[in-house]
């Protein structure tokens, strides 16, 4: 078996300073809500870890997740950590294609059977196997074949985690999430459209450090990142409490940076770390740049009414149905009154 360098050796070779590395470890620890005493352990674990084998499967997706992860903050420690894993299969990034690529996947699976990680982006069409294939293999077959020897599966992005846009009504391809198919392996969902890169590397770091997966919420998301709502951490929250709301995108309220609740913000029901971790090296996040949160890390966010409909709006049925209810009321009222009068006249006759 050939020598595989440790992550530490790789980082050193890439010119990452000890200081920068420890800073990364500290950030990761805080994100995972670990005590500072764990930082050296994280550092040691990462430095000494053998590059774990990772197989990245892309199904019905837009490649946005990959773009987000590979381009957004380059070059960063997170990006380098990615270099530090043995990404043995990723058909967007790898040079090989066709049979050669498939051969690489099989090789990685054989070599690391039982210990490799499978990362998935994109949903899996169940309607017809031909809807989405890679090297002639249907997404479903490839997923099931690949996860058989995996230690764990990580669903990257809302499509893999919850079905995503492909599963939006009327869901023409019968798209499903990874969790719908993989029942016998731990599956971590890192939803988002796209998900935050830092969140993903932190999960991988924890796996490398402790050999375990993070604590998950009911939607399979790491609690450390998806434990609080955008609303709870939003810097515009005081405006909500004061009742100051932007009514349109170009009014005084919008310019003054008031709460975007009335413009449909999903912050109160969206669990994600955007408001704290932010995007583009901690620069901003949607609400900060003046747009309401769409709730992209929540299941079915695409089917929960219009994005610009305020959250407390009810989803009433059609006016026709309401008119129907009114008509039923008229009928029942008339019948009730008639019945009452009938009893009255019956008694009048008896008397």
């Amino acid at each position, binding site marked *: 078996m050939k020598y595989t360098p440790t992550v530490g050796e790789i980082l050193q070779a890439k010119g990452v300073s000890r200081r920068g590395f420890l800073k990364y470890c500290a950030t990761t620890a805080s994100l995972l809500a670990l005590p500072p005493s764990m930082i050296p352990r994280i550092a040691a674990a990462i430095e000494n870890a053998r590059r774990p084998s990772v197989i990245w499967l892309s199904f019905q997706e837009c490649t946005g997740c990959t773009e987000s992860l590979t381009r957004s903050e380059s070059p960063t420690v997170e990006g380098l950590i990615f270099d530090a894993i043995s990404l043995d299969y990723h058909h967007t990034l790898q040079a090989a294609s066709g049979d050669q690529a498939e051969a690489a996947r099989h090789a990685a699976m054989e070599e690391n059977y039982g210990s490799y990680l499978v990362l998935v982006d994109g949903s899996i069409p169940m309607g017809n196997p031909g809807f989405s294939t890679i090297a002639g293999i249907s997404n479903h077959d490839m997923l099931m074949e690949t996860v058989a020897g995996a230690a764990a599966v990580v669903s990257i992005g809302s499509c893999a985690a919850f079905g995503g846009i492909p599963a939006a009504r009327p869901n023409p391809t019968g798209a499903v999430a990874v969790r719908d198919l993989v029942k016998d392996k731990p599956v971590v969902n890192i939803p988002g459209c796209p998900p935050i890169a830092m969140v993903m590397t932190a999960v991988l770091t924890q796996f490398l450090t402790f050999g375990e997966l993070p604590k998950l919420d009911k939607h399979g998301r790491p609690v450390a990142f998806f434990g609080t*709502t955008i*609303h*709870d951490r939003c810097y515009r929250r005081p405006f*909500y*409490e*004061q*009742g100051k*709301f932007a009514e349109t995108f170009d009014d005084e309220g919008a310019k003054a940076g008031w709460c975007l*609740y*009335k413009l449909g913000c999903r912050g*109160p*029901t969206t669990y994600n770390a955007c408001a704290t971790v932010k995007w583009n090296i901690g620069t901003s996040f949607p609400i900060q740049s003046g747009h309401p949160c769409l709730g992209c890390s929540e*299941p*079915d966010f695409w089917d*929960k009414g219009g994005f610009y*409909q*305020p*959250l*407390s*709006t*009810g*989803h*009433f*049925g059609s006016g026709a*149905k*309401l008119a*129907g*209810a*009114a008509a*039923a*009321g*008229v009928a*029942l*009222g*008339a019948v*009730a*009154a*008639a019945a*009452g*009068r009938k009893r*009255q006249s019956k008694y009048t006759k008896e008397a």
Partner: protein
Amino acid sequence: MDLLELARGPVLQAAAYILVGGTIWRLLGIILLAKKPDYSEARGPGGLGAAAKVIWSRAYTAEPFKRATLYPKIMGYVLHVGLFATVLLFVPHIVFFEGFLGFGWPGLPNSIIFFIGVATVISGVALLVRRLTSPVLKLISNFDDYFSWFVTMLPLVTGLLIPIRLGIRYETLLAVHILSVALLLIWLPFGKLGHTFLVFLTRGTTGMVFERRGAKT
């Protein structure tokens, strides 16, 4: 479909249908009963003007009754004004109404609404205490009174819990809040909460009969 979607989708829909249908049912069931013509010579104006007058004027207590009814009156005012304020002046609620009315209106800051909500709950509790302790109310109260109290207080309490959270997730609390509102809407036309619309009938008919006589209303 999660709880929140269920609550504000089909459940709220069903509640709206029942509210509309039930209200019309009850109103027509009363209005379409026999009416007694009054052939006596009128002294004052009857008609809808008289009805409107009493619908408005009965909001006030006549001087002679003020002292005896002070406690329930004050609590009743706080409860009703509080309910109107929390329902109609809380911005997320206004947005809710705007959703199907097509227009909105200015609201009050959340902190003030929260305070009003707490006062409303306190008045509700005070009225319940009165109902449970006053011999008169103990005698005349029935299931309807207690259940109606419960379904009125539930949305208030669940609404107030949303900002407090108590470690429960926002969307769960919101869903429970909406479900409690649905329960209120469903019960409203059938029990004593029907006074929301029946008050116009009772005060109105009394206004028409007694203003016509030129008698005290």
